[in-house]
């Protein structure tokens, strides 16, 4: 076997290992969110004289947030697809679209948080609000780290082109991004929708 083809085989195996490892990591993150969901489930009635979920959630606003995040996931998917076709410019454009949409989502979430804190319903107000801020905030932190990762990735594509390592990372980061989408769907349903219905 020549050195080149040997290294190619090695890299293919590495790709496989990375994908499995990353899936396992995502499952651990799932457990982290499950713990926070459980906390929310236990504490969401503990309003301690403060507002309950019905009083503070603005459903249309959250729906817009949700749609923005879902669209960003779609554009992340197109970016991955373009990367596998070795269309560098297209990949970069769709990654930047993903970043812009993700940033918009994050800013909307933060302005919702700051609104709540301004009117006195901060995470210090009650067990319910603590658990709400922790659950949604942890998702937001993940989005922030995802945005950092996506930005680094865009730089790497610009500098290094679509090499093997970069391709692998596009794949992994878009998995991460879709995962955050799935978590958000649960947050949207359990925290916001069910919170307003009951």
């Amino acid at each position, binding site marked *: 076997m020549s050195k080149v083809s040997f290294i190619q085989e090695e890299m293919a195996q590495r790709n496989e290992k990375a994908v499995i490892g990353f899936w*396992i990591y995502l499952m651990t993150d799932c457990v982290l969110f499950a713990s926070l969901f459980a906390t929310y489930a236990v504490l969401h009635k503990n309003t301690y004289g403060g507002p309950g979920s019905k009083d503070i959630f603005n459903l249309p606003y959250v729906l817009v947030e949700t749609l923005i995040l879902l669209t960003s996931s779609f554009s992340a998917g197109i970016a991955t697809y373009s990367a596998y076709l070795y269309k560098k410019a297209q990949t970069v454009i769709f990654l930047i679209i993903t970043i812009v949409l993700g940033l918009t989502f994050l800013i909307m979430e933060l302005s919702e948080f700051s609104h709540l804190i301004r009117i006195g319903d901060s995470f210090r107000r009650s067990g319910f609000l603590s658990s709400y801020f922790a659950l949604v905030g942890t998702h937001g932190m993940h989005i922030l780290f995802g945005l950092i990762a996506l930005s680094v990735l865009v730089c790497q594509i610009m500098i290094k082109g679509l090499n093997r390592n970069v391709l692998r990372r596009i794949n992994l980061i878009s998995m991460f991004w879709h995962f955050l989408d799935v978590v958000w769907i649960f947050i949207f349903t359990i925290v916001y929708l069910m919170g307003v219905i009951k």
Partner: protein
Amino acid sequence: MYLFSFLLLGRLTLKAIPSDTITRGGALLVLLAPLGLAALLTYKKKWKWLYKNWLTTLDPKKIGVMYIILASVMLVRAGVDALMMRLQQATSAGASNGFLSANHFQQVFSAHGTIMIFFVAMGLMFGLINLVVPLQIGSRDVAFPFLNSVSFWLYTAGLIIVNLSLVLGTFSIAGWLAYPPLSELKYSPGVGVDYWIWSLQIAGIGSLLSGINFIVTILKMRVKGMNLMKMPVFTWSVLGALSLVIFAFPILTATLLLLTLDRNLGTHFFTAGGGGNAMMYVNLIWAWGHPEVYILILPAFGVFSEVVATFSRKALFGYKTMVWAIWAIVLLSFTVWLHHFFTMGAGANVNAFFGIMTMIIAIPTGVKIFNWIFTMYKGRISFATPMLWFMGFVVLFTIGGVAGVIMAIPAADFQLHNSLFLVAHFHTMIVSGVLFGYFAGFTYWFPKIFGFKLNERLGKYAFWCWLVGFILAFVPLYILGMMGATRRLNHYPSGLGYQPLFIVAGIGAGIIALGVAFQVLQIGYSIYKRKEYKDTTGDPWNARTLEWSIPSPAPFYNFAKRMEVSTKDAFWEMKQRKSLDQGEYEDILVPKNSPIGMLIGFTSLAFGFAFVWHIWWLSGLSLIALISIVIYRLSQDNIESFISKDKLRKLDISRKAEG
């Protein structure tokens, strides 16, 4: 002035330096040990050697050795805590108050538990996993060698943070699991609980990453022909334990995060007021904590399975049932956490469910015990040290297990909860199960890593000291628990009749300390005699699994040839068929050393330390540094060196000529 100091150093002031003699002595020891080591390294001009060969290594065998060294040092450190507690309880009856203040005593038992679980048991476990698993599955490396180094350095960072509490400030007084509301800001305003949180948080993330790494290693990097049901049982047990790691440790991360928020941002998760719920913490921490004890014990079961088969010269009895027992334990371990707090008052039905599940978990464990005993039956047993540790384990573990089943009855548990009976029970499980297991594994695999065997006679002395010392130290605690002595007593009235039993327990602890001294002596003496004890065959115990098919000490590339196996106990089969030298040489890639794992560890250390003392500029800075370092590493290409098959053949032949 005050504001300036606060901005620069947070709540760290000169008052943080300990004032009483005993703590000062401890602080001095913690400072002097690394300083002495540094002086020795400078004197011997070994810094470069240390850096190049050890600190930056990505070789799992070397990382494993470093884990074991640190864990052994911590065993002594937390062992001194244990001796202090025994001395306090043996002397503090009636008019005498012993030599420790109540507050200091609380710090000592909190530190003892925390360090023994997180930095001794976990350290020994990851050490052995690093040493053995790649070799056992015929692999050259782990799936993510760099991540492995990060895991190790995060463990080290956590270890340093927990020991810093001796030098600056105080440690937590809230026990090894820091139950709120005691661990909340209102009742523990100092830095102790923060030290506890950050030490565990950082080390815990390291464990989680290690878990992912080794699961992928076991699933993807086995030698050709080794399907799952042909894997050695140690590897199976590691796969089980690490599956628990990836499901349990995120719960710990989340729980510690919530406690951090409570203490720093004034949230109300576990507070007594404000709509918090302290029992939720207890549920969450045990949803991690109960699987955690199985994380520790399963690899020890794996070690015993290898040891008992090797030293009985027989294949392990009931391989398949062994594997199924591991997975039964893995699943059941998530269904029993509530037995740690039957007294919460969840109601009779809930308690009955968890009581029954707890009793059921004794069944797969019993299956394993019987399998080991049947393996010994009609075997040609040689009573080497690893085998002695095993036999000590079987006896003690069964006694401890029966005590556990007694406590699984909720009605009985209401009497025994938080008593010394419980303390005796879990020490029986963890000392005889986990520690004896890792001692056996250490003695067993030592020649494979270092190339020479350990002295048997001193090893046997150590074993007998541990066994006798253990019985003397813990049987009195069972009795005391029945007499009503609760755990964590720093003082008791003399009329209760506790003192004689506490004195016996103290003597037992002293004998265990003697056992540790013999272990230190054993290692020192064996290094001195290493030429005489040299393992020239690569297979000193006439063993059964693949790691023994290569020379000792194992070369950095592990296996020179690409092998193929067709049965379980593959090496034993090869020896029977006399087909030892099979396979072909091939090109390999070896990861280059990297200091970045160490850098990540130290930036995490700075982050945790800054968070403990509220030095916000430093925690911000170290967080940014951490992210930048990770980005830098991800941008590195050319992180491996290529070794051609010709070079590998030359290396291999010269290695075999040496042996």
